[in-house]
């Protein structure tokens, strides 16, 4: 993020007696870093702007008496830079001495000890002997929230954290107040850190002023073992290092912390809080350690053999009594390729086609018609950086893929125009060129309007079928503006969580595909979970291509719940939250004869509906492969011993297959399994994404008719710290704000015929038979005609479909 844009005019100069070449506009430290000459620094960071306020990087230039900050001084032809001269050394020592004057003698209790830049540079460049006798400054600490702990007495005012807030995350939580001795770093509004990437200041802080609060006082960097791994909470699969500690917690190997692993194509050096802190859930009390089976109302711990034998008996009896179509499998979109493959193979062998990982989607037709074909392109952050326009369709990218949000912000700062079509006017941390806030029932219409506008501008020649369907949709000024951007620029259409879980996702997808096919915009679905792309690529799902012509179809996740089955197989999911229609899912599961859950965690609800619980390896405990949104296949090894008696899910499937006497399940280790997966053995995704998406699917005759016959639709967002079983159990990430609160636009209230009810009103929300009551806030960011009510499991009462129609019932007193 250097402010100085390097031009490509080369400049040569002498660095420590060696002639080196840089480009005009580069600073000394940039060239020195490239040449392998280390210049000490605190405030300088290659991804942040230059502040030059720590003065640690002073170097002697042209034998002058006065030394220059290497992070700020630009190179010039034939200058002589000396990083080793006595003058340089002296200034480094003096700066070091000043920096340490006010530093408390905290090393022994400071979590940064051992990985602290201040220590390292004091060792390498300081004098080693102190002369300062006076009192030291003490700064009162501030509560920065549950993730980052502040010990501001240790702060050396490098302002890296401040610059991160203003430049990278775009959420300036922290700032510097005061000057000189009185300068303090604090959060302006005493609100703590609220950004979804706030943990990065821990990495940036060169001293121990900002440290990880969950990790506080729990270990030393030197005693950890460093493992390369991938984070599991979004489709980016950020590269991370997982630090484990032998005998760390209660004598067991434990994950002590997660830090980013540099990867320029994905997360650069950043990491979202979700990825950084979700490891805390691994030790949660909900963790399942033993196989358990239901014994009437109570649960009994059994051994694996008993549990799996029981499962196989149940499956056989269901097949015998009701046929294999009475089995349904719901798995997490984060399931690895190996597990997905073997699970699918087992179900196919049993004759069952009901399997799905798209729990959050109701309308999956567009994907089912494209089996073995990825219905989208891959995202390339390099292209994103250079694209002219990005359209967010139903996506709150900041929460859904925080790192992608950072990259998008970086791109927008470089000139990319961002447009958004969302049911909520989100708090973007970048400039949003055009923002359309429409409720669910108008969502498809607006996209249709864009197509109409495009057609009006002549960018697209609509076929008769399309024309027929768009006949009642008119272009608006907004859709015209959108269409102009779409026509003129190249970039991405990003389909987010809302767009995918919209009841008419197929329509949205078709329209976007249409737009994408006639413009330079590439359509990318920001899939939920970690491995949706991969699971789709290996053909996991209800539709299975038997040969090039015939397709055998089962039921999708929504259908499986809609038409209850006798036996459900759950893997790492809690349908009472994860499913599109939680209430329906819960009812179906409760009614089912048998529910087998392969899971790492239990929940009270699961203990009610499940019959057999099989403990599965959680994140960091299993080996596997994932495909991320950029099309990379990330294969990884388990780095932590299994918790309790849990087993890798693929092994559970394999033993189950053996017990069911299925052929072809002789895998002894995961490498044999991998050899069986075409995607992994070829290591290439290209083949499977070949082929055209059929753009003429059955859509309703008139898109305008798709409006759900209700005045209100729900925006049933699944919170970004709720989106999988592990994150849900990371206590520090769960904030009070995640309580159920319904929000509504004040105009909507008025339109419903009520006065603005204020903020403290408790209302009843009703979807079909399901009613809940919760406080209602009025919020102008919510689209008119929509009620924001997030998906949270709260006891017995639960709402139904996430984005379906909803009724709002004010209690009698208020009317």
């Amino acid at each position, binding site marked *: 993020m250097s402010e100085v844009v390097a031009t490509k005019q080369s400049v040569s100069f002498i660095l420590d007696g060696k002639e080196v070449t840089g480009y005009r506009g580069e600073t000394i430290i940039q060239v020195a870093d490239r040449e392998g000459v280390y210049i000490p620094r605190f405030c300088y960071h290659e991804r942040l702007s230059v502040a030059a306020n720590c003065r640690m990087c002073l170097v002697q230039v042209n034998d002058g008496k006065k030394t220059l900050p290497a992070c700020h001084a630009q190179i010039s032809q034939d200058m002589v830079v000396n990083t080793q001269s006595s003058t340089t050394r002296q200034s480094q020592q003096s700066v070091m*001495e000043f920096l*340490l*004057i006010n*530093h*408390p*003698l905290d*090393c*022994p209790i400071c979590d940064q*000890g*051992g990985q602290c830049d*201040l*220590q*390292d540079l*004091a*060792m390498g460049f*300081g*004098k*080693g*002997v*102190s002369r*300062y006798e006076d009192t030291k400054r003490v700064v009162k600490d501030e509560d920065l929230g549950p993730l980052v702990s502040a010990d501001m007495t240790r702060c050396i005012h490098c302002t890296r954290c401040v610059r991160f807030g203003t430049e990278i995350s775009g959420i300036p939580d922290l700032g510097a107040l005061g000057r000189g001795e009185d300068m303090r770093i604090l959060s302006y509004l005493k609100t703590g850190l609220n950004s979804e990437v706030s943990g990065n200041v821990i990495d940036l802080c060169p001293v121990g002023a900002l440290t990880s609060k969950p990790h506080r006082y729990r270990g*030393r960097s*030197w005693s950890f073992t460093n493992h390369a791994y991938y984070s599991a909470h979004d489709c980016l699969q950020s590269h991370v290092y997982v630090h484990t500690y032998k005998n760390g917690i209660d004598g067991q190997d434990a994950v002590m912390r997660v830090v980013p692993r540099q990867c320029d194509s994905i997360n650069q050096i950043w990491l979202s809080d979700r990825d950084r802190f979700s490891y805390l859930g691994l030790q949660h009390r909900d963790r399942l350690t033993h196989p358990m089976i239901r014994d009437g109302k109570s649960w009994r711990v059994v051994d694996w053999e008993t549990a799996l034998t029981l499962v196989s008996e149940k499956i056989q009896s269901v097949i015998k009594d009701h046929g294999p179509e009475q089995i349904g499998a719901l798995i997490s979109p984060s399931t690895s390729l190996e597990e997905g493959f073997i699970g699918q193979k087992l179900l196919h062998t049993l004759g069952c086609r009901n399997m799905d990982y798209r729990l959050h989607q109701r309308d999956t037709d567009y994907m089912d018609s494209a089996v073995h074909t990825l219905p989208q392109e891959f995202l390339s952050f390099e292209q994103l950086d250079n694209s002219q326009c990005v359209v967010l369709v139903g996506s709150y990218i900041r929460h859904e893929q925080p790192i992608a949000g950072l990259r998008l912000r970086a791109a927008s700062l470089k000139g990319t125009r961002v447009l958004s079509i969302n049911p909520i006017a989100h708090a973007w941390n970048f400039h949003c060129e055009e923002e359309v806030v429409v409720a669910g029932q108008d969502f498809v219409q607006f996209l249709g309007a864009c197509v109409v506008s495009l057609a009006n501008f002549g960018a697209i020649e609509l076929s008769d079928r399309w024309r027929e369907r768009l006949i009642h949709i008119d272009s608006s000024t907004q859709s015209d503006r959108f269409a102009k951007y779409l026509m003129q620029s190249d970039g991405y259409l990003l389909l987010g969580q809302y767009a995918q879980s919209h009841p008419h996702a197929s329509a949205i997808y078709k329209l976007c595909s249409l737009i994408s096919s006639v413009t330079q915009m590439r359509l990318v679905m920001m899939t939920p979970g970690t491995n949706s792309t991969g699971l789709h690529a290996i053909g996991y799902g209800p539709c299975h291509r038997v040969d090039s012509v015939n397709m055998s179809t089962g039921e999708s996740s929504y259908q499986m719940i809609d038409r209850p089955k006798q036996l459900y197989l759950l893997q790492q999911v809690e349908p009472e939250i994860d499913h599109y229609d939680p209430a329906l899912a819960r009812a179906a599961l409760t009614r089912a004869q048998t529910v087998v859950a392969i899971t790492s965690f239990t929940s009270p609800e699961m203990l009610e509906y499940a019959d057999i619980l099989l403990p599965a390896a959680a994140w960091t405990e299993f080996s596997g492969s994932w495909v991320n949104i950029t099309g990379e296949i990330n294969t990884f090894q388990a780095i932590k011993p299994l918790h309790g008696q849990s087993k890798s899910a693929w092994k559970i499937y394999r033993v189950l297959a053996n017990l069911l006497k299925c052929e072809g399940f002789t895998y002894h280790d995961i490498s044999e399994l991998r050899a069986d997966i075409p995607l992994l053995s070829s290591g290439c995704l290209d083949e499977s994404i070949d082929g055209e998406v059929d753009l003429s699917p059955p859509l309703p005759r008139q898109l305008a008719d798709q409006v759900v016959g209700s005045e209100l639709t729900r925006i049933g967002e699944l919170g970004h710290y709720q989106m999988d079983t592990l994150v849900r159990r990371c206590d520090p990430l769960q904030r009070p704000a995640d309580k159920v609160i319904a929000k509504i636009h004040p105009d909507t209230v008025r339109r419903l015929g009520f006065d603005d009810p204020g903020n403290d009103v408790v209302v009843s929300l009703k979807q079909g038979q399901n009613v809940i009551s919760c406080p209602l806030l009025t919020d102008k960011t919510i689209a008119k005609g929509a009620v924001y009510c997030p998906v949270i499991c709260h006891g017995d009462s639960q709402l139904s479909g996430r984005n379906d129609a909803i009724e709002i019932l004010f209690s009698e007193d208020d009317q």
Partner: protein
Amino acid sequence: MMIDLVSRSNALGELKNFTFNFGPQHPAAHGVLRLVVEVEGETVVQIDPHIGLLHRATEKLMESKPFNHSIGYMDRLDYVSILPNEHVYVMAIEQLLGLKVPKRAQYIRVMFDEISRILNHLLVLGSTALDMGALTPWFYTFREREILMDCYEAVSGARMHANYYCPGGVLRDLPNRMAQFEESPWRFSSEIKDLNAPRSGSLLDYIQYFTDIFPARCDEYEALLTDNRIWKQRTVGISPIDADRALALGFTGPMLRSTGYMRDLRVDQPYAVYDALDFNIALGKTGDCYDRYLVRVAEMRESNRIIQQCVDWLRRHKGPVVSDHPKVVPPTRERSKMYMEEMIHQFKHFSEGYSVPEGETYAAVEHPKGEMGVYMVSDGANKPYRVKIRAAGFPHLQALNELCRGHMLSDVVVILASMDIVFGEIDR
């Protein structure tokens, strides 16, 4: 003829030499040596030493730890003469760092090196006699070793594994007072007073006391052994070796000097302050066990003289005992609690250690057993890239077969004892 031979061997069975294991648990194996001895009657035909039973991968361990953590491992190499082991290791680090060691520290080091030499030779003497069935010299030598171990303890806090030298000098200065015997129901108070008399002053006084009585104590060992006909019959002419062969086998120390070859690193390449001290080197003639014994006794008397000179010097000169290089030597406890720089250096010194400039070096000292060397390669990190230890005893043990062949089983014990084998350093 052929047929005859075959039939004879059939009649008698195949004639084979008697083979048995000497060790690894054997009273005279000096640790965990296992010798596979092949004898004809009692005459040794072949000896095959099997080593490695005490292997602790010291060199590898050193490569996995910061420099200053490994000093304690050096103690455990030759655990009979501890401080010279440390000396050679810290010397290697100092050479790589180019660190200057204060004079007083060097005198202390030399003094304790020589104390270790006496400790070592006393043990060899006692154990050689013990191996030959003379029980008493063992107790006499241990009587004196006790005094020296007290010196070890007084200065470092441990009677054996001192961990006392550090790069840049020694950890602490010599103590000004010695621990005293306490009243006990077993002794009269006058007796306690007698016992405490030599301990009433500083450590230097106590060492002085030792050097005063030690020559007479040497006479006692010699009265028991040197002229004793049984001792002489057991040692004279046992495993003689000439200088050339000894050199070829890599002998050093008393093993080499007993052949009459003059080689002593204290004179040949003086380190520390040996060039400022006056002492003689004892040489033997035939290189047999008796000469080795005589050389060692003479060396002890010379060491005693060196210690006297060191005590003398140390009494007259005060000063720092450790270099003031802040990056290598940890700060004092008081300063590290008061000042930030020192705090950081204390923290980093004990957690990460210090980085030693890239380079390689070989340091060697005249260890009581011979030339003890450390070859150290640093790649600029805080851990050595490679440490190779030249243990003096290793080449000696290699020659065991050659030295023992033709002698009797009882001589094997004597030869082994006279070689002064310690498995800590051989197996490493």
